[in-house]
C-alpha cells in the first residue's frame, strides 16, 4: 500500500509541472462568424484590420469588431481561392494611413481574372485615393493559386507573391509573365531600377524571383526574405528568397500531382534553388510571421507558419530551421489562414472558412 502511494505521489509530482509547462497560452476570441478571413494587419494591440475573402475589409476597434464594413474596396472575384486577399500597412501608416490590398480582380469580359494590388488611404472607415499599383499579366481563366501575399523590404519596396494559376504551372519558369513569381515594386507602382531583370528585354522588369508555385506566406527578417509555398500533393516549401533566383517549380519538386502523376521526377538540379525545409505530406502553409515579442520569451526568434492541413501552426527556430524539429501549436482550432504578431507580443490567428474567427493567443498565467 505504502509503495502504491509512493508511486502515485511521484506520478503527481512528475506530471503536474510538465502539464503546467506545456500549456503556456490561452485563446481570446476577437471576432466570430466572419466570412473566410484571409489577411490581418495589426495597427496596434487593440486595433486590427482584416480582410474577408468574400470582399469585405473590416476593423476591430478597441478590441471589438466594428459591424460596419470599410467602404471603397474594389469589386473582387470571390470564387475558388479568389477574393479579397492580403492587407499590409505602409511602413509610415501612422503618418499617412496608407495600406495595400491584394485581390483577384475580374476582367471586363468576366471570363478571365487576375491578381491586382491597390494602394489606398484609410479615412473614416472609407478607402480613398485608391490606385492600382500592380496587375499580374496575363490574365487567367482559373480561380486558384494567386499567391497574393505582400511584405515590405527594408528599402521600402513592396514584395508581392504571384501564384502559378494552377493550369499555367510551366509559366513559372519563363520570365515573360507573372505566373509563379515574386514581384518587387515601389509603392507608387513604379519599378525599382535595381530589380534583377530590368536590363533583360525578354523579362518583365518587376520580377524579383521565379519558379514558385503558390506562395502563401512571406516575411522579411533582418533583410532576409522567407517565403512559404504550397506544393502539389506533398512538397510544401519554406524558402529563403534572393533576387533573380529560380526556385525550380515545376522542373523540380518534392510533390506529386493531385492525379497521382509525377510532375517531375527531379527534386534538385544545379542552378535551381532548394527549399530550406519541405513538408511531405503537405501542411498547406498559409500565413507566416516572425516572432520577437516579449509575451512569450521562449518563442523569440521563431518563424510561425499557419497551416490549413490538418490545421495548426508550425513554430520553427530561425537559427535552426533546417533541423526536423518544429513545434506544432494551436492544433485544436481547425484550418488557420493567417497569423500576425501584436505589439504586445500576443499572436493573432485567423481561422479559415465561412464561419471564421479572429483569435488572440495570450499567456495563460
Amino acid at each position, binding site marked *: 500500500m505504502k509503495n502504491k502511494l509512493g508511486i502515485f505521489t511521484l506520478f503527481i509530482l512528475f506530471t503536474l509541472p510538465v502539464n503546467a509547462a506545456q500549456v503556456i497560452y490561452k485563446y481570446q476570441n476577437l471576432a466570430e462568424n466572419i466570412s473566410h478571413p484571409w489577411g490581418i494587419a495589426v495597427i496596434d494591440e487593440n486595433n486590427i484590420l482584416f480582410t474577408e475573402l468574400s470582399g469585405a475589409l473590416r476593423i476591430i476597434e478597441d478590441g471589438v469588431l466594428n459591424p460596419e464594413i470599410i467602404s471603397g474596396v474594389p469589386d473582387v472575384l470571390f470564387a475558388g481561392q479568389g477574393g479579397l486577399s492580403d492587407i499590409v500597412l505602409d511602413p509610415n501608416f501612422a503618418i499617412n494611413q496608407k495600406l495595400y490590398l491584394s485581390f483577384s480582380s475580374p476582367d471586363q469580359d468576366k471570363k478571365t481574372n487576375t491578381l491586382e494590388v491597390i494602394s489606398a488611404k484609410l479615412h473614416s472607415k472609407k478607402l480613398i485615393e485608391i490606385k492600382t499599383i500592380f496587375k499580374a499579366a496575363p490574365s487567367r481563366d482559373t480561380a486558384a493559386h494567386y499567391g497574393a501575399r505582400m511584405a515590405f523590404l527594408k528599402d521600402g519596396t513592396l514584395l508581392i507573391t504571384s501564384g502559378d494559376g494552377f493550369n499555367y504551372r510551366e509559366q513559372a519558369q519563363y520570365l515573360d509573365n507573372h505566373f509563379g513569381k515574386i514581384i518587387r515594386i515601389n509603392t507608387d507602382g513604379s519599378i525599382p531600377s535595381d530589380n534583377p531583370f530590368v536590363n533583360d528585354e525578354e523579362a518583365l522588369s518587376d520580377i524579383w524571383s521565379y519558379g514558385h508555385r503558390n506562395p502563401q506566406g512571406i516575411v522579411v527578417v533582418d533583410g532576409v526574405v522567407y517565403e512559404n509555398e504550397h506544393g502539389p500533393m506533398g512538397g510544401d516549401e519554406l524558402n529563403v528568397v534572393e533576387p533573380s533566383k529560380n526556385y525550380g517549380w515545376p522542373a523540380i519538386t518534392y510533390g506529386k500531382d493531385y*492525379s497521382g502523376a509525377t510532375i517531375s521526377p*527531379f527534386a534538385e538540379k544545379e542552378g535551381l534553388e532548394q527549399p530550406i525545409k519541405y513538408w511531405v505530406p503537405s501542411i498547406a502553409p498559409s500565413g507566416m510571421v516572425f516572432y520577437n515579442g516579449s509575451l512569450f520569451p521562449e518563442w523569440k526568434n521563431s518563424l510561425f507558419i499557419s497551416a490549413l492541413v490538418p490545421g495548426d501552426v508550425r513554430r520553427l527556430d530561425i537559427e535552426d530551421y533546417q533541423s526536423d524539429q518544429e513545434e506544432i501549436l494551436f492544433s485544436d482550432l481547425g484550418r488557420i489562414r493567417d497569423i500576425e504578431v501584436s505589439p504586445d507580443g500576443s499572436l493573432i490567428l485567423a481561422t479559415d472558412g465561412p464561419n471564421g474567427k479572429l483569435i488572440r493567443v495570450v499567456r495563460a498565467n
Partner: protein
Amino acid sequence: MIKSAFFLFLSVLIATSLVILQETMSNLIWLSSVNMPVTFSIFIATYIDNLFMMNGGGEVPLILLVAIGMCFAFLVSKILLNWVEISKSFAYGLAGSAAILAIVLLMPLAFYNLDILAGGRSIAGKTILSLYGFISGYFFGASLSSKVES
C-alpha cells in the same frame, strides 16, 4: 457475357494506360524542353510509377473514372446501334473517344476550372487523349465483332 466483360475490362485498361502515357509524355517532354536530364530509363520509371500512382495514389483512381465513362458511353453506343447503320468498331471507337473527352472536359467543372489531368490542358493534348479513347473503344468494338463471327 463473360467475354464481353473481359473485353470491356481490357479496353478500360488500354484507355487508362494510354491516358497515363499521355500524362507522362506531356510532363517529360516539357521537362526536356527546359534542359532537365530526361532519359529513356527515367521515362520508363516515371511511366511505371504513374501507372500505380494514378490508380491508387491520387485524389481519384483514374481507372475508375475511365471505367465509369466508358461503360456509360458504350451503353449509349449499344442502344444507338439498334437504329444507326455503322460498323460496331467505329461506333465504339467514337464512344471511347467521347468518354475520354468528357472526363477531360468535365473534371475541371468539379475543380474550379482546374485541369487535374495536366496532359489534357492543350488542344493537342485533348486531341491525343480523344484518339486514345477511340483506339480503346475500337478495340472493344472489334473484339465484340470477332466474338460474334466466331
